C-alpha cells in the first residue's frame, strides 16, 4: 500500500472534491437566495443555524481543496528552494487567515 504524505494528499483532494459537488450546488442555491437580500435579511438568513453550519463546513472543505491545489501549482513552477518554501509557507498562512476570518464572521452573527 503506497504510504506517505503524497498519497494522503491525493486522497484528501479527491474526498474534498466529491464533498464539494453537493456543497457547491447548495452554495449556489443559497447565494441566489441571499445575495438579493438587504443587510438585516442577509444576516437573518445566515444566522439560521442550518445555513451557518453548512456554510462553515463548506468553507473548511473548499479552502482545504484550494490549498492543496495551489500547493501543487507552487511545487510545479517554483524551483528555487528558498523561494519555494517561503511561497508554501505564505500560502499556508494566507489560507489559515482566510478560514479564520470566514468562520469568525459566521460565528459573530450569533452573538
Amino acid at each position, binding site marked *: 500500500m503506497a504510504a506517505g504524505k503524497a498519497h494522503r494528499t491525493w486522497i484528501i483532494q479527491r474526498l474534498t472534491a466529491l464533498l464539494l459537488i453537493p456543497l457547491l450546488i447548495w452554495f449556489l442555491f443559497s447565494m441566489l437566495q441571499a445575495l438579493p437580500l438587504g443587510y438585516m435579511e442577509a444576516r437573518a438568513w445566515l444566522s439560521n443555524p442550518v445555513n451557518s453550519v453548512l456554510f462553515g463546513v463548506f468553507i473548511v472543505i*473548499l479552502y482545504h481543496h484550494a490549498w492543496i491545489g495551489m500547493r501543487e501549482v507552487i511545487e510545479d513552477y517554483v524551483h528555487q528552494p528558498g523561494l519555494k518554501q517561503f511561497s508554501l509557507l505564505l500560502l499556508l498562512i494566507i489560507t489559515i487567515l482566510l478560514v479564520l476570518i470566514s468562520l469568525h464572521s459566521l460565528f459573530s452573527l450569533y452573538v
Partner: protein
Amino acid sequence: MDKPQRPLSPHLQVYKPQLTSVLSILHRATGIVLSVSLVLLTYWLFALADGESTYTAIQSFLNSRLGTLVLFMLSWTLFYHLFNGVRHLLWDAGIGLELNTSYWTGYIVVAASLIITILLWWLK
C-alpha cells in the same frame, strides 16, 4: 555551486495544442482563479459581520455592471472547473480514459459549463 545551464528541447513552441492538453491547463488556470476568488468570498462574509456600511459597499459593487461581469465570469470558471473535475474523478476511477472518450467528454464539459452558466444567469 551553479549547475551548468543545459539547452532544453522546444516543447510549448512546437507541440500543437490539443483538446486534452488545453482542457488540462484550463483546469489548473480555473483552479487558480477560483482560489483567488476565495478572498472575495471571505471578504463578503466579513462585510456581513462587520456592519451595514461595509456590506452595502460590497453589495453595490457586486450589483454594478463590473461586479455582475465578475460574478458571471466566476460562475463560468466554477462550472468549468466543477464539470472537468467530475471528468477527472471518473478518470481516477478508471473511467473514460480512452482517447475518443476523453475527447467527447471534453466537448461536453466545455459546452455544459457555458450553457449552465447562461441558464443560471438567465433564470435567476
